[in-house]
């Protein structure tokens, strides 16, 4: 049992976390960075398609901002979007200069590809491994800083944050589990940045890795930070049946078609101009409609790349070609691949300002875990990597500057003991016939049934009841593995608790928003209702129950319009 101290504590070592840690270190902070997996195993490595920036002469940040706002179905806060799009170009160049490999055009300049919802080709990429390319370079920069003898940074690799520490007002740090030894410790910091990524495993299937369990959202929620826009869960149009593994939007960006069972390019009906490259919510709904109306094949539609040159596929989409062969037994060069909409991304999250600051003093958030909000009701492809690096950097700087004249706070009495007791209780429960994995599975499948592409009051009500039951089951299921070293059973148990919190918030948001906007499509309220709903839903966890508040969307220069593609 130890107590560590840092100026800035970063929880998460994906793109947002590492960018925040580097920025804080650059500002002279003594940084501690915690990750439950080795940094390069973070889920950012799965990003395939690319990262957006308006960099070329024929493009402008305003156009990028407009596409983003239209994509968001006018729920994004426009002042935040302006920051995102204005800083995109210089951040992208900074990444390139650090060493990120990007595909090039004939002149040796950075090359682009088209992406959904974009009026210009402004997605920069390397093949279909863009996330990995950026994540690994970020890790290289950490090693470089270490080599150059900068202010030391401690990386707590394979440590799991179990809870945040609060004195009732400020966030003081976190309690954490050293996965290797099973010991509980505490870290105290002047500023704590949460960069723990999304909650994709709330749904089954999901494109997200098994570690994407919404830990940070739940933990911040529990110490009073409001969650915003939680109902806005993106379902990606092209995921593999069964596993839910992603086929990048880059495939459609490079020209792939979507076909129904009759061989028609059905997007003609839904988005005659943008076709396959309409916004994700639009394409996912179109697919689901085709499937529901009997023009699907075994719950799927087809993604067709047969007309694309093999060389192009080999040079720009090599990973998904391999995934198709390995996981679906389909070589996309020769056959269309069956795909369906699947849970992919959390637009909602911990409410922050453009510096990553949350409502709770001392607590910051960046990346998928945060809601600034730049994605509103629907995120554009390739805007998320951008979000992680821009707001990661900003929160690293803000946490350092704000904490500069402060002392590291003291540890309140009993924090570690209480946390130990909480975990011990999980071990001590009597054996029963239920299983942690079974509860997680039931949660995922029911969320997929009731809170996916199409929603209505009955399904949502049913899901609320279901979550209540799942929470009861969760309260009595024991951790079976009683060992200390690398106890993954304990980790799953904790993660399931976070997932249940996230699911609860998603459903409350979805019930509350009685309109259709972006990813939230209510069959019982099929229209967008700007009059009443140009506002965010904020959910706050209190001892008395969950409180709902509203805050208006910030509009700067783009008045809401009808959204067609």
């Amino acid at each position, binding site marked *: 049992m130890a107590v560590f101290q840092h100026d800035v504590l970063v929880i998460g070592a994906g793109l947002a976390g590492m960018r925040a840690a580097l920025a804080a270190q650059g500002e002279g902070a003594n940084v501690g960075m915690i990750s439950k997996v080795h940094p390069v195993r973070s889920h950012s490595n799965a990003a395939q398609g690319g990262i957006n920036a308006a960099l070329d002469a024929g493009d402008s940040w305003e156009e990028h901002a407009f596409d983003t706002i239209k994509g968001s179905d006018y729920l994004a806060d426009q002042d935040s979007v302006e920051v995102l799009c204005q800083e995109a170009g210089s951040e992208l160049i900074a990444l390139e200069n650090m060493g990120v490999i990007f595909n090039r055009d004939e002149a040796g300049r950075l090359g682009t590809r088209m992406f959904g919802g974009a009026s210009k080709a402004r997605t920069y990429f390397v093949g279909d491994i863009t996330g990995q390319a950026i994540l690994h370079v970020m890790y290289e920069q950490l090693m470089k800083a270490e080599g150059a003898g900068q202010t030391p940074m401690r990386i707590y690799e394979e440590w799991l944050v179990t809870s945040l520490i609060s004195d009732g007002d400020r966030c003081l740090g976190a309690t954490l589990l050293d996965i290797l030894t099973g010991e509980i410790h505490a870290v105290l910091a002047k500023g704590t940045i949460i960069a723990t990524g999304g909650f994709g495993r709330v749904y089954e299937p999901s494109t997200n890795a098994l570690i994407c369990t919404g830990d940070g959202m739940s933990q911040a929620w529990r110490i009073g930070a409001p969650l915003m826009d939680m109902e806005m869960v993106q379902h990606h149009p092209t995921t593999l049946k069964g596993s839910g593994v992603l086929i990048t939007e880059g495939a459609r960006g490079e020209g792939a078609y979507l076909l129904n069972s009759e061989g028609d390019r059905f997007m003609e009906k839904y988005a005659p101009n943008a076709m396959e490259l309409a916004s994700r919510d639009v394409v996912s709904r179109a697919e689901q409609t085709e499937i529901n109306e009997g023009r699907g094949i075994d719950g799927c539609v087809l993604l067709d790349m047969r007309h694309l040159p093999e060389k192009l596929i080999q040079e720009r989409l090599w990973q998904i070609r391999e995934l198709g062969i*390995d996981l679906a037994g389909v070589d996309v060069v020769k056959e269309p691949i069956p795909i369906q909409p699947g849970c992919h991304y959390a637009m909602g999250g911990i409410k922050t300002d453009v510096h990553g600051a949350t409502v709770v003093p001392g607590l910051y958030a960046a990346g998928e875990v945060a809601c600034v909000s730049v994605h509103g009701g629907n995120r554009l492809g390739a805007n998320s990597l951008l979000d992680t690096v821009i707001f990661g950097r900003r929160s690293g700087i803000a946490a350092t500057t704000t904490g500069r004249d402060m002392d590291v706070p003291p540890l309140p009495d009993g924090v570690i003991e209480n946390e130990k007791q909480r975990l011990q209780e999980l071990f001590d429960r009597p054996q029963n016939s239920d299983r942690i994995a079974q509860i997680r599975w039931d949660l995922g499948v029911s969320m997929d049934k009731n809170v996916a592409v199409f929603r209505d009051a009955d399904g949502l009500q049913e899901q609320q009841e279901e979550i209540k039951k799942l929470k009861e089951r969760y309260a009595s299921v024991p951790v079976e593995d009683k060992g200390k070293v690398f106890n993954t059973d304990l980790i799953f148990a904790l993660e399931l608790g976070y997932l249940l919190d996230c699911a609860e918030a998603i459903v409350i948001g979805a019930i509350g928003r009685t309109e259709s906007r972006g990813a939230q499509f209510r069959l019982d309220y099929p229209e967008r209702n700007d009059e009443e709903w140009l506002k965010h839903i904020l959910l706050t966890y209190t001892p008395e129950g969950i409180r709902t508040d509203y805050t208006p969307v910030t509009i700067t220069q783009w008045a809401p319009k009808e959204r067609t593609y």
Partner: protein
Amino acid sequence: MKIALNVKRFDPEAGNETRNQQYAIDLPEHSTVLDALIHVREYVDATLALRCSCRSAICGSCAMRVDKQACLACKTKITDIVKEEGQEILVEPMGNMPVIKDLVTDMEVHWSKVRQVTPWLRPTGPEPEREYLVSNDAMMDVAGAMNCIHCGACVSDCPVLEIDKSFIAPAALAKAYRFAGDPRDGTHKERLQMLSETQGGIWDCTRCNMCVEVCPKDVRPMDLIMQLRDKAVAAGVAGGTGKRHGDAFSSSVRRLGRLDEMRLLPESVGIFNAPRLLGELRGAFRMMRVGKLPWKHALPLVSKPIPGIKHVRRLFDQARREEKETKE
């Protein structure tokens, strides 16, 4: 389909013993080894420890040995392994690294080697106004190396690392190539010199091809190591061990039609380099013990040319002539 797993287990809290445990489960035909292990962990035996996350061969968490060969469990289908009903699948942790618990290994061996190759871009000269201007081909060339997800499969199964802990090993050398081949890096020569001269560098690879075979991402580390050798020779920094190693290699083949491993070593490090030679002796004895250095070749007197050596020599002469002609 019915699946029979045989998993090598180790629990540090229960002593130093390893044991094998069988699990019989039923899963759909298209399942992967990872699906099977996850099923065991979730529904049969919660104490089984393994790392996994993405399920799609990108995070690099789930490398382990399946039927004696390192692979990503999430990329290995049950039907790739099981050829007849009832056949057991043997699952073990990776080699060349300490085991923490069950299938979880300590990968510091690998990361320490990555740190050894100065794994970040070192541009020299003025910063560009925007991006560096470089050709797509050059970027795609290093992107191949960057495809490495640091899963450790090649590190696990590298036979050189098994006998020589100083070997930088395939994955970290592939990482080295990623910078030595990147036109934006201004320190190619220093890098190549380090890789050439350092103990365990590029000249210590024995070209056994194992890393190429086990790599789940087609990084082809051995090929990259060979390209690093070419680059080192071209940059004129392979003068020491490296160049001599190449010369000794070809002179041996010309003389005998095969490698004379025993003379390769002294000729490579320099016949008068006693300290290095002594250092290598330990490795040589170990290689002999595991049959990598046939003892009879250790006696120069028995080193007889292979039958048909004259054809080999003719090839050599032909190659020399052509080289000379192209130079002229």
